[in-house]
């Protein structure tokens, strides 16, 4: 048998060995990403969580590694922190709802109405804002919202003025920043929706609105949920846009940021709040059954 085998070079022998050993193949494939995921990714989260149980020396600002729950008690009991946490969740919810309302018609157009050969171009167009730096976009909005800026000029004729810097500006800018993350999943969901289901619904006597509520929405709901995970979590963690256009508004990210040099353990405790909220949010999405058909 051996003399009929092809001349065995090193590469061919290696390929043969890999072919016969599926476990070796799998470990070669996954060892690097698993290392990254476990050490760098989960490791840093664990470090964050652990440091939340330490305290800070009030005089030296040095971290004291004595275990206690003081930071969590502070976060939960002080009304400032509670208010900021609730405000942050409110902003994240508002941004998510606004993005759903804006993204759905756009995605419907790019996925179903536009000619098939234009669709990839439209998807690229939706993505173009992501090519520009986050900071540039946020500062552009600062200009738009500044006193006597574009927003004031647009609202002027209606006898009012732009929102200025503040909570409304934060919600506006975050909605703008995360919109592509909502459009893309909805676009994908609508694109996969078989067209003949819409035909079938109309055929059975359903008008357009009925088809929308009974067929389209239930079937793209998982996509909307996926998009909302992006907009919700990105909004909950943001602090830069708030600094730029938020005026005096503070969100949880700002508290983390301002505490990070002075009181790292407290910042870590604050940082676990968005993590906990997002875990709850994901559980709620899962409970809704939206992810069953994924």
């Amino acid at each position, binding site marked *: 048998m051996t003399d009929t085998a092809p001349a065995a070079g090193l590469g061919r022998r290696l390929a043969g060995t890999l072919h016969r050993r599926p476990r070796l193949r799998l470990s070669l494939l996954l060892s690097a990403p698993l290392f990254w995921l476990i050490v760098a990714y989960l490791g840093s989260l664990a470090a964050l969580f652990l440091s939340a149980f330490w305290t800070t020396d009030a005089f030296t600002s040095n971290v004291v590694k004595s275990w206690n729950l003081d930071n969590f008690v502070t976060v939960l009991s002080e009304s400032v922190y509670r208010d900021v946490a609730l405000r942050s969740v409110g902003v994240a919810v508002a941004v998510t709802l606004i993005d759903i309302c804006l993204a759905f018609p756009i995605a419907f157009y790019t996925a179903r109405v536009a000619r098939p050969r234009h669709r990839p171009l439209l998807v690229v167009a939706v993505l173009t804002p992501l090519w520009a730096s986050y900071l540039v976009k946020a500062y552009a909005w600062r200009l738009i919202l500044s006193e006597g800026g574009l927003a004031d000029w647009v609202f002027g004729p209606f006898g009012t003025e732009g929102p200025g810097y503040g909570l409304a500006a934060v919600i506006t800018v975050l909605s703008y920043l995360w919109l592509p993350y909502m459009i893309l999943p909805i676009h994908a969901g609508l694109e996969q929706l078989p067209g003949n289901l819409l035909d*079938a*619904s109309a055929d059975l006597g359903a*008008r357009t609105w009925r088809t929308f509520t009974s067929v389209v929405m239930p*079937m793209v709901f998982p996509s909307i949920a996926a998009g909302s995970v992006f907009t919700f979590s990105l909004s909950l963690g943001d602090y830069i846009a708030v600094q730029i256009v938020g005026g005096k508004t503070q969100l949880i990210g700002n508290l983390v940021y301002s505490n990070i040099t002075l009181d790292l353990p407290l910042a870590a405790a604050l940082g676990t709040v968005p993590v906990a909220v997002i875990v709850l949010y994901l559980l709620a999405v899962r409970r809704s059954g939206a992810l069953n058909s994924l």
Partner: protein
Amino acid sequence: MEGTAIRLQSLRKSFAEVDAVAGVDLEIRDGEFFSMLGPSGSGKTTVLRLIAGFESPTSGTIELAGRDVTRLAPFERDVNTVFQDYALFPHMTLEQNVAYGLKVRKVAKAERIERAREALRDVRLEGYGNRRPSQLSGGQRQRVALARALVNRPKVLLLDEPLGALDLKLREEMQVELKELQRDVGITFVFVTHDQEEALTMSDRIAVFNRGRIEQVGTPAEVYEHPATPFVAGFVGTSNLLTGESAEKVVGSPGTYSIRPEKIRLAQAPADADAGVGSDHSTAVGTVADVVYLGDSTRFLVDLDTGGRLTAVQQNLDTSSADVDAFRGSRVRLHWHRRHNFLVE
């Protein structure tokens, strides 16, 4: 005289530069099982979609039971469709799927549940109401699609290659079932298929489509035995055309003739070729180029001395596969009654 269920006049539908439907006139009668037969791209499915209202025609008119519905939306037309891939709603149970049409027409809940269950029972899926489409086999989905359409008691049921995705055995069962169902409910069925056998088996009348036009409308027997054009002769049944010089020599006059393979008899060619064949028969001598054993019958492909090729099908009454194989390469004489020479052009 029966009423007219569907009347199409000068119906035309263009996509970009291409005429998918290039001028179709057609009348479909009340209560008839009507098939639209043709190869893919012949426009038959587009005509069906125009009748359903999923597309609107470039020009021409569509009447349903005497009413012009050309510009009406699908939900304003009293027709229902069984889709090729069934188009069941995956997020609904079977009962919800079947009751959907009743629900959007605001039938009371108790009645629609009752009717949906009844419809599922009619297609032998009683007790499956709480399952989802993904839990069913292809044949079961097909029956749900039927129930979902029929529960609305439409005047016309449109079926777009509904058996195309089923395996052969199931397909043959469903052909019989569909035909019986149609007889029972008395609804006009418009059935799109590319399978000529299916169309011949089930239909009261057939329209043969080619390149966006209708080549012939007739009963299965008319279409099979008296094809109006070479296309129909070739598409319905096996193509067996005699043309040019060969036609002149064998048939005795010029033209294009269609002969059905099962009408042709085949014998080993002795030197005295015409012995025992009446003058009312056409004969041709040739060499067997290939033998295809089909189990119940055998197909002989014969290259004629006068040019051209004829296919003859013989029942394997007394012959075995070894017997028929011996014919390969041998000289044979074909003969058939003159009345089976059918001038198509």
